[in-house]
């Protein structure tokens, strides 16, 4: 099967498995040096955390119920937020990549806005729309008595708001890199647009969707500003791990470092596990 030689914009691995370019000689120093510097820049701060971690106090910290509550809530809400992002984000990415409509560029810019919005501002914006006195939240409160702030649902909403752009950008890039002729071929064979999307497009861009979902999940897991502003901070209900870490920093920096390590360990384990499950070819 020949592939269109468009540049890939997603970090998805080659679907043919691991193909090493042959005949690559030595790595040029002009690339190796900045690459190693970049690696050190990203990894050294984490090593600093490991060095400063209060290993002796770890067991005691790990027995606290609040830690597990926060960790469970973090994993649950990040996963749900990723689900929301997938359900809403993949169709949105398809719309941006495969259809022409006036103002598409503007829509794309708007979609990426939560990426650059300061998180706290994002939280306030959510409150102004979905809060008890918000534009939509007021109706919701009047008609159903449901208020979103200070609930676990609020946490998921805040995280999805911040994380969804990552997914949309990844999937849109994958769609642009995928050859549209397959979809056209499916259409000539009588498939409806929806069937072509389901049976042809989705499998083609699955690695891109996987990569985007992982990015979105990681972003949701670390989300702090929008969450505390929109959902507040209440142990067991809206206190995710980053919130617990922030407050621990106020009183006991060592505990905060330990909590961060737990979060790091769990997220690395999950991401590594997912990579093998999802992102390799069967």
């Amino acid at each position, binding site marked *: 099967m020949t592939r269109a030689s468009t540049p890939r914009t997603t970090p998805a691995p080659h679907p043919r498995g691991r193909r090493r370019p042959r005949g690559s000689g030595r790595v040029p120093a002009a690339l190796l040096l900045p690459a190693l510097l970049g690696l050190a820049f990203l990894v050294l701060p984490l090593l600093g955390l490991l060095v400063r971690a209060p290993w002796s106090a770890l067991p005691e910290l790990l027995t606290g119920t609040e830690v597990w509550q926060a960790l469970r809530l973090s994993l649950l809400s990040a996963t749900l937020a990723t689900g929301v992002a997938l359900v809403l984000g993949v169709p949105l990415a398809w719309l941006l990549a495969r259809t022409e409509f006036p103002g598409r560029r503007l829509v794309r810019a708007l979609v990426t806005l939560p990426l650059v919005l300061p998180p706290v501002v994002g939280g306030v914006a959510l409150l*102004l729309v979905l809060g008890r006195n918000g534009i939509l939240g007021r109706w919701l409160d009047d008609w159903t008595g449901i208020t979103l702030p200070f609930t676990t649902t609020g946490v998921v909403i805040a995280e999805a708001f911040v994380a969804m752009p990552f997914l949309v950008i990844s999937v849109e890039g994958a769609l642009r890199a995928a050859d549209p002729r397959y979809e056209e071929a499916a259409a000539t064979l009588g498939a409806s647009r929806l069937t072509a999307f389901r049976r042809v497009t989705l499998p083609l861009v699955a690695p891109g969707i996987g990569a985007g979902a992982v990015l979105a999940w990681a972003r949701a897991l670390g989300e702090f500003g929008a969450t505390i502003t929109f959902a507040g901070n209440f142990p067991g209900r809206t206190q995710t791990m980053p919130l617990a870490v922030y407050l621990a920093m*106020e009183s006991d920096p060592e505990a905060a470092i330990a909590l961060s390590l737990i979060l790091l360990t769990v997220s690395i384990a999950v991401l590594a596990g997912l990579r093998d499950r999802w992102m390799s070819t069967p």
Partner: protein
Amino acid sequence: MRSVRRLLAASAVLALAAGLTACSSSGSGSASNSSAPARPEVKGTVTVFAAASLKESFTELGKRFEAAYPGTTVTFNFGGSSALAQSIVSGAPVDVFAAASPATMKTVTDAKLTGGDPTVFVRNTLEIAVAKGNPKKITGLKDLSGVKTALCAKEVPCGAAAVTALNAAGVQLTPVTYEQDVKGALTKVELGEVDASLVYRTDVKADSAKIEGVNFPEAAKAVNDYPIAALAKAPNSNGAAAFLGYVGSADARRVLTEAGFQTP
């Protein structure tokens, strides 16, 4: 009160000593009164780290200080007291530190970084912040159990004070959120997401367009002391001493009490 006077005296002595060692003092009269120490010695940038709740009043004090000591600039870093204390301990070049609680100042004194003992220069008390017009008719702490309330987290000074006040009143209260700082607790009332929150009097005063405060008697049991100190390694020690002296002056006390602080 005595501590402030001692501060003033100390800064006057420092400034005088500096004046004596300077070779070209332009005939400064030796009759320096205690409120205006010999001036030519105080110059350059004075770096002040101060608790977020001091933002409005200290910005004003900074302007007045610069007017009183030409040739000086005061640069402020406002933030959560614990975060500021952490960065001072990590070696930030700071002249003066004003914290919102003795506990956060202790982080710095424990690291032996203060020049001299910190002194308490103002006190802050709690009020119940409610929306303008007090729609829920809240009169005291006991009314809070029936409405949506935001408290500060117990890890930050305003949260610790809230716990003390609630215990003094014997009120059991489950808020909907424990906010990371006092401004967060205030924003939630401003946007109408909660009916009430426990914040400082000074915050209510600074936000009087949208918020009003309800006084309650138990606030007297949960008074927050604000200590201030010059740093031992202050890059501008003369400036630090002069600023400390100025914060203790009658002029500065007026600004601080207008903002809603009590002076000891």
